Every structure is written in structure tokens, then in C-alpha cells.
């Protein structure tokens, strides 16, 4: 295979090459493609981790969609999926947090109560102190939260948990201002809350601040503080919980949200999210730009938008689907893809919409996501392709019309030389219907041989095309069809190659040239007869001259030999005249056939002319004992009829007819020449009582040498060109000539010429 296969998705490949650098199509297997998509998504959406992109790309299956936006599209879909996951995750986390807060609050409140109870108990009763202290220890020392007691702005109590949290030793902390352990930006807040608490004013029980570790690191904590009596005086007790984990999660979520937002904003495709009631939750800038969204559509029902797009969209939108039906489908859980719409922006764009239901973990539809892609380029291309297809279809029809209507037989053979198509001309030539020919070879339909008579398989031009891989430009064969009809055909065979360069089909064009062949044969017969006719007088002339030169006829002295000599000279003269006449006639025929014979037309008195010519023949007729009579009606005023004619040619017509009449009429016979006026024409007739012409010969009397196939050897004496010339001359004068004859009774030639006013 010399030629590389053209990729079907050339559009994709070319884009790929343009954007990604050279990528050999042959190597673009599934693995390569996945790699490409991963790379592309990685570039477009850095938010996705390599693992998730990998997970996604593994879902890609061949065959690939011919789609220049595949990576972007895959990314978008991934993103939608990811958003849904993250949203669910966020929601989950929030719920967990809420639960935890509620639980914690309850816990803290309980702890506070317990502590207060403990303290007041301790203050009140000495008994049970030990048990109480144990409880206290359990609560304070072994709890999960840090506990401090603040009095006089200094730390009076710090539990073990706090030590763990901050790394300060209890001894280092006790007695120091509590604000020293708080991140500077929260110190005022904490101090103010403490003061207000001591004053008995309303203070939030819980709030978040950051405390400092020994190393100076900030730790986010949740404070749950309350007023207590400590050693007989008012004090603040704070339960401190490390919330750095929660903060971390929140921060991550915030970041994720920001990134997703960025994607929404930067992605080229239009994206929209709808809630369960079809209300717009979100639309990205690309979508707004694509449709020319005029107002904030948040919360507006899609149905409402569909009913009044002009109100919401700047551009007129034409959809090729039922928008509401599409929505119904999606909310019933079925994605609707490739919805084509036209946006009449400037320039107009074609947009393809894809609608996907959003489902919760239980598979219940909770909303709809929609993405919109500008497919103008693709659409234009596909329109172009459609146009080309249409053009191809037309071309095919034209070819079909030609195929059906040409005079030439057109065969189409497969590579096994079996006929797969044959046009109506083939049907006419073979006498077989196309369906009879299909599946057969050429030679099953025809007896076929070349000019020399070689038959199939010795002679097989169609197979020759296969072996030589070359066309047969033109050849002549003789076909014998099933009904025994023979015809000469001019054929050409042209191979049609496939992409691999192998012959797939052969087109055979077969033209019936039987008529041309017959004409050729007639021509060669004409030449043959003409040269024969020229040779006959030459033979005689040469023969006599050689006899004279040889002295065969004796010396010229004697009276007898002189007489012989004159006789011979007369014969030679006669043959020379015959030869001259023949050459003249041949020249005339050649001029007539090539259309070079020109008439010199003049207005001529026809009856006067006929009289003159006839009288020239009187002597000749009388010598043969034939009566020559002219019958014509001259006008009463004695004036003649006139024709537009070439005088010499008109004479030639009459001379030929009279000459023939005398030649074929025996002594005692009669020739009548008549002139009759008929409807603006003059009919001139030459009627004899000669031998007549056989009815089978009558239609051919005006042909050159009376060419009946195979009969030219039996020609009557004479050149056989005379009547052909006569007929041609009459017709050149816009006249007609015809003949009637009966064997033994005689022949009558008539010709008519149009009359002209005097």
C-alpha cells in the first residue's frame, strides 16, 4: 500500500495537530488518546487531581466521537460531576458540623453546669469533697477540651488539655495575663467579653478566636465561656476546643468553590444549572454571552424563559426541538443530547445543547444541568459536506442519464470480468436484457473475435486490461450476438483502480461501427471498380499500340495495312475518349461527394434547350434505327418556360439520359422526350422502349456502380457513374428525379425543375 489511509475524523486530527503539535494518526490508539485527553484536561482544568482525571479518561471508549471539543467536553462533564460531589460533600460536612456544634454546646452546657455545681458544692459542704474532686478531676483534667479560669485578667486555673494544646507548663501559665496566650488580633475581643461577663452583661457564650502556642503558632479555637464564682469571687471559665481541623476543611471547601467558580467563568461552553422546579440556579458568563442574556435569570423558571425569550435574550433563538418536551425528558431522568439551535447573533451561530438530569445518591432527579456549545464551524462544515453530497448525487444522476442514453454500449465489469452493469445500448446490441447479462462474462454473451479472426480465449482484450493494468484505448472487433447477428464494434476498456492501486472495475465502451465498416467497404469497392474501369481502355490502347510497334499489323505501305491502321487508330481514339469521360465523371463524383460542385445559375428557356439537345442526338438515334420524338406543350402565346439552371450541367443531365436511352433501345424502338408544366414545375421525361430494368435493381439505379453487395463484379457495360451524377445534378437544381421501368417494355426517367417567372 503506497497511499496511507485517510482518517475518517480528519477534522479532529487536524485540530489535534494544530493544538498539540504533530500527532501521528496511526499511533493515536485508545491509550494515546486517553493520554491526550488527560494532558488537555490537566491544562484546561488544573483543579482536577491527576487521579480523578485518570479515573475519568479510563472511561473513554473507542470509537471516538469526531469532536474537536472532546477534551473540553469531557472536562466539563467531569466538572459537573465534581461540583455535584463537592456540593454533597459540603452539605455533609455542614450537617456534621452542625450536629457537632449542637452536641458540643450541649456538652459544654452540661460541663458548665456540672462545674458550677461542683464548685458550689465544694464551697458549701466539706463532705463529699473527695468524691466531688474526683468528679471534678474527671471533668476538668481528663476531658477533651481545654479549661481555664480567669480572674483579675490572669489565669487562675489551666487543665492538662490546655498544656497539650499550647505546650505551656501549668506553672508558667498560672498567674499570667490570659491575653498573653491569645493571638493579638483577638485579645481585645477576649478581654472585652471577659469584662462584660464579669459585669453580668450579655456576652455570646461561644465564639471563635486564635490562641498562641509556646512556639508562637496560632491555633483556632472555639471558646465557650461562662461566669463562675471562684474562690469566692467572680471569674470567667472558658472551655476551649481546638477547631483547626474544621477550619482546614472549611478553607479547602472555600478554595474548591473558588476554583470551580473560576472554571465556570472561564469555560468556553455555556453552562446552566436548574433546580428541581426548573428554576435557574446558575448560568456562566459564556452562556450569557452565547444567548445574549439580558437580565439576571437567577430563580426564573425555564418554562417562563422559553415562553418569552425575547424578554430575556438579546438574540432571537430558533430551536430545532420542543424545548419543554426536552425538559420533561430530562426531569424524567433521560439525558437529551445534541439539541441544535440557531442563535441570530451577528454572525449567526449554531449551538448544540446537552441536558443532563442531576440525581441524588438515591437516583432521584433533583435538578438539571445544561451545556451549550458553539457548533457553527462544525455545522457549516456539515452543510458544506451536505452540499457536496447533493452535488455528488446530481453528478451521479447526470452520469446515470448519460449511461442510459448514449448510443455506445457501456459495460461495467468487476475484477473477475463479470458484468455488473450494462446500459440500454448494450441491450439493443446483444438482444439480451441487462439482468440476463449481469454476473456473466463478456464472452458468454458474445462470440467475439478480432479483425484477423482470433476468437476467445486466444483473443481476450478484457483480461488483458487486468494483466497489463492498462486501458485498451481503441480496437475493432467483430461481435456475434446470440441471435447470430454480426456487427463490427469499436471498443475501449478502461480500468478503474481502488486506493491500493488494484483494478476494481473495468468500464467497457462498445460502439457499433457496422455502418462505418460498410461505408468503408463501399468506398474500397468504389476505388476498385473505378480503377478497373480506367484500366480497361488502357489495356486496349496499350495492346493495339504494342501490336503496331511489333509490326504485327504489317507495314503501312500496303492499302490493306493502312486500312487496318486507321481502324486501330479509331479504336484507340474511342478508348481514349472513354477514358477521358471516365476521368471527368470520377472528378465530378468526387466533387459532388465533397460538396465542391458549384452551379453557375442563369435563367434559361427550358423547352428551347431540350429541343436543341435532342436534335443533337437525332443523327445518333437514326444510325441505330431508333425514332426520337419530342412532345411538349408550348404556351399559347408561344413563350417558353424558364428555369434557374447551370446550362452545362442541365445539358449533362439530358445528354446522359438520352445516351442511356439510345444505348439500351434496340433498332426499331422509340424514344419520347416530353415536357409538361405542373404546379410551377416542369417535368421532363425520357421514355424508351428498351430492355427495361429489373424491379430489384430499380432502387439502386442512381447509386455509384450500382453497389449491391458482391454484385459489383457483374456490372453492365459503362461507367455506372452517369445516373449518380444525373441525380446529384438534378438535386443541386432543387429538382427531383425518378424512374419507372418494366423488363422488356422499356424505361422512363423523369425529372422536374422549379419554374421561375419569365
Amino acid at each position, binding site marked *: 500500500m503506497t497511499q496511507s489511509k485517510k482518517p475518517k475524523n480528519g477534522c479532529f486530527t487536524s485540530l489535534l495537530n494544530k493544538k498539540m503539535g504533530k500527532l501521528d494518526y496511526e499511533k493515536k490508539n485508545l491509550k494515546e488518546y486517553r493520554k491526550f485527553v488527560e494532558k488537555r484536561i490537566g491544562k484546561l482544568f488544573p483543579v482536577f487531581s491527576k487521579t480523578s482525571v485518570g479515573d475519568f479518561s479510563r472511561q473513554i471508549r473507542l470509537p471516538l466521537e469526531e469532536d474537536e471539543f472532546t477534551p473540553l467536553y469531557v472536562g466539563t462533564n467531569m466538572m459537573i460531576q465534581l461540583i455535584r460531589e463537592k456540593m454533597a460533600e459540603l452539605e455533609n460536612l455542614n450537617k456534621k458540623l452542625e450536629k457537632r456544634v449542637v452536641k458540643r454546646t450541649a456538652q459544654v452546657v452540661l460541663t458548665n453546669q456540672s462545674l458550677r455545681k461542683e464548685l458550689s458544692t465544694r464551697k458549701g459542704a466539706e463532705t463529699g469533697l473527695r468524691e466531688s474532686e474526683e468528679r471534678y478531676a474527671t471533668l476538668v483534667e481528663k476531658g477533651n477540651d481545654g479549661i481555664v479560669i480567669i480572674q483579675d485578667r490572669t489565669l487562675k486555673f489551666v487543665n492538662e488539655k490546655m498544656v497539650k494544646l499550647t505546650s505551656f507548663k501549668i506553672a508558667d501559665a498560672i498567674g499570667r495575663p490570659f491575653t498573653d496566650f491569645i493571638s493579638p488580633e483577638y485579645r481585645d475581643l477576649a478581654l472585652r467579653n471577659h469584662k462584660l461577663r464579669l459585669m453580668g452583661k450579655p456576652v455570646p457564650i461561644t465564639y471563635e478566636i486564635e490562641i498562641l502556642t509556646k512556639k508562637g503558632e496560632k491555633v483556632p479555637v472555639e471558646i465557650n465561656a461562662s461566669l463562675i464564682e471562684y474562690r469566692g469571687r467572680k471569674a470567667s471559665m472558658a472551655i476551649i476546643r481546638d477547631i483547626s481541623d474544621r477550619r482546614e476543611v472549611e478553607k479547602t471547601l472555600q478554595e474548591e468553590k473558588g476554583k470551580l467558580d473560576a472554571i465556570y467563568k472561564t469555560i468556553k461552553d455555556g453552562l446552566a444549572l436548574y433546580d428541581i422546579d426548573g428554576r435557574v440556579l446558575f448560568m456562566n458568563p459564556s452562556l450569557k454571552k452565547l444567548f445574549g442574556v439580558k437580565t439576571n435569570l437567577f430563580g426564573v423558571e425555564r418554562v417562563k424563559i422559553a415562553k418569552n425569550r425575547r424578554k430575556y435574550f438579546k438574540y432571537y433563538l430558533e430551536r430545532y426541538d420542543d424545548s419543554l418536551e426536552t425538559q420533561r425528558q430530562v426531569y424524567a431522568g433521560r439525558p437529551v443530547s445534541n439539541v441544535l439551535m440557531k442563535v441570530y447573533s451577528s454572525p449567526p451561530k449554531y449551538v448544540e445543547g446537552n441536558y443532563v438530569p442531576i440525581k441524588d445518591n438515591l437516583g432521584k432527579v433533583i435538578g438539571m444541568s445544561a451545556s451549550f456549545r458553539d457548533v457553527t464551524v462544525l455545522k457549516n462544515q456539515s452543510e458544506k459536506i451536505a452540499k457536496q453530497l447533493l452535488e455528488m448525487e446530481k453528478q451521479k444522476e447526470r452520469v446515470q442519464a448519460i449511461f442510459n442514453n448514449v448510443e455506445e454500449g457501456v459495460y461495467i465489469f468487476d475484477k473477475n470480468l463479470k458484468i455488473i452493469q450494462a446500459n440500454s445500448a448494450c441491450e439493443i446490441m446483444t438482444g439480451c436484457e441487462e439482468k440476463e447479462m449481469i454476473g456473466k462474462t463478456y464472452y458468454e454473451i458474445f462470440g467475439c473475435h478480432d479483425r484477423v479472426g482470433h476468437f476467445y480465449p486466444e483473443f481476450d482484450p478484457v483480461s488483458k486490461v487486468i494483466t497489463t493494468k492498462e486501458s485498451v484505448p481503441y480496437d475493432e472487433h467483430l461481435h456475434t450476438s446470440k441471435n447470430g447477428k454480426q456487427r463490427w464494434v469499436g471498443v475501449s476498456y478502461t480500468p478503474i483502480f481502488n486506493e491500493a492501486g488494484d483494478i476494481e472495475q473495468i468500464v467497457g465502451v462498445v460502439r457499433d461501427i457496422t455502418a462505418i465498416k460498410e461505408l468503408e467497404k463501399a468506398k474500397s469497392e468504389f476505388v476498385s471498380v473505378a480503377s478497373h474501369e480506367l484500366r480497361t481502355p488502357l*489495356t486496349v490502347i496499350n495492346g493495339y499500340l504494342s501490336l503496331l510497334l511489333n509490326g504485327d499489323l504489317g507495314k503501312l505501305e500496303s492499302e490493306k495495312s493502312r486500312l487496318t491502321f486507321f481502324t486501330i487508330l479509331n479504336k484507340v481514339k474511342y478508348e481514349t475518349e472513354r477514358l477521358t469521360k471516365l476521368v471527368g465523371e470520377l472528378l465530378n463524383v468526387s466533387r459532388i461527394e465533397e460538396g465542391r460542385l458549384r452551379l453557375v445559375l442563369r435563367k434559361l428557356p427550358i423547352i428551347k434547350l431540350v429541343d436543341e439537345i435532342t436534335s443533337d442526338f437525332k443523327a445518333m438515334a437514326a444510325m441505330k434505327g431508333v425514332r426520337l420524338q419530342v412532345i411538349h406543350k408550348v404556351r399559347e402565346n408561344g413563350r417558353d418556360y424558364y428555369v434557374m439552371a447551370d446550362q452545362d450541367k442541365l445539358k449533362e443531365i439530358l445528354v446522359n439520359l438520352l445516351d442511356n436511352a439510345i444505348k439500351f433501345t434496340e433498332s426499331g424502338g422509340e424514344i419520347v422526350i416530353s415536357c409538361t408544366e405542373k404546379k410551377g414545375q416542369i417535368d421532363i421525361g425520357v421514355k424508351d422502349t428498351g430492355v427495361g430494368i429489373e424491379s430489384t435493381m430499380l432502387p439502386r439505379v442512381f447509386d455509384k456502380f450500382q453497389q449491391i453487395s458482391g454484385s*459489383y463484379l457483374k*456490372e453492365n457495360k459503362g461507367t455506372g457513374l452517369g445516373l449518380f451524377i444525373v441525380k446529384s445534378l438534378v438535386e443541386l437544381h432543387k429538382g427531383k428525379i425518378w424512374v419507372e421501368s418494366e423488363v422488356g417494355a422499356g424505361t422512363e426517367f423523369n425529372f422536374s425543375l422549379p419554374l421561375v417567372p419569365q
Partner: protein
Amino acid sequence: MTQTKEKKIKVLLIEDEKEVAELYKLKLTLDGYEVITAENGQEGLDKANSYRPELIFLDIKMPEMDGFEVLKKLRATARTKDIPVVVLSNFDEQDLIEKGLTLGANEYLIKSQFTPEDISNKIKSWVSED
């Protein structure tokens, strides 16, 4: 080449062209042959049968029956099948020459290429062949 008076060789000339026939008859008669002429094929066949000539000169282009038909009939008839036949024609097409020879002509000559003397001189060779 004059013949002896005792035994004249009989030659039949089948030729429709009167001028040509006269020419050959004149020369052959002068050379001492007995020349019988026939104007068409049928007459030629008849005279070949009745005179039994020693040589027949046969034209091809003739009315009614052409030379080839005459030749076929001559060769198909016992009385004439062994008489040497020389075709004398002004047709020089190869296929006609071949046809003449195939049908049994001893020679096929183109008239315009031979003088009456050439023809006359060759008679002996054809006749002695027999």
C-alpha cells in the same frame, strides 16, 4: 510465335468487353491460334463444353454471371474440369486473386500489366502443363 497449320491450338476467350476481346483475338489469330470468343459467362460455359478448347481466358467482371461462377462451373463439370484457365482481369485486389487461384485458375493476370504479345507468348507454357 506462329503455329503450324496442321494443328491449331484452340483458345476460348470469355470477355464481355468487345474492344478487349477483339484485341486479343487479333493478336492470337495472327500468332496462329484458333480463337473462340464468348461475350458472357453462359456463352463461355456452352462453348467450353462444345469446343473443348485447350486453354480458356476468363474475365471476372461480367454481366449476369461473373468469372468466378464460370470458373466454379468449369471445374465442376467433367468435360471442362481439366482445361487450364487463365484469369484475365483488371481487378488487382489480393482477395480476388486468391479467390481465383483457390477456385482452380492456373494463373491470374492483370490485363493492363501485360501486352497481347506477353499473353500469346505464355500460352505454350500453360497448354504444355496439361
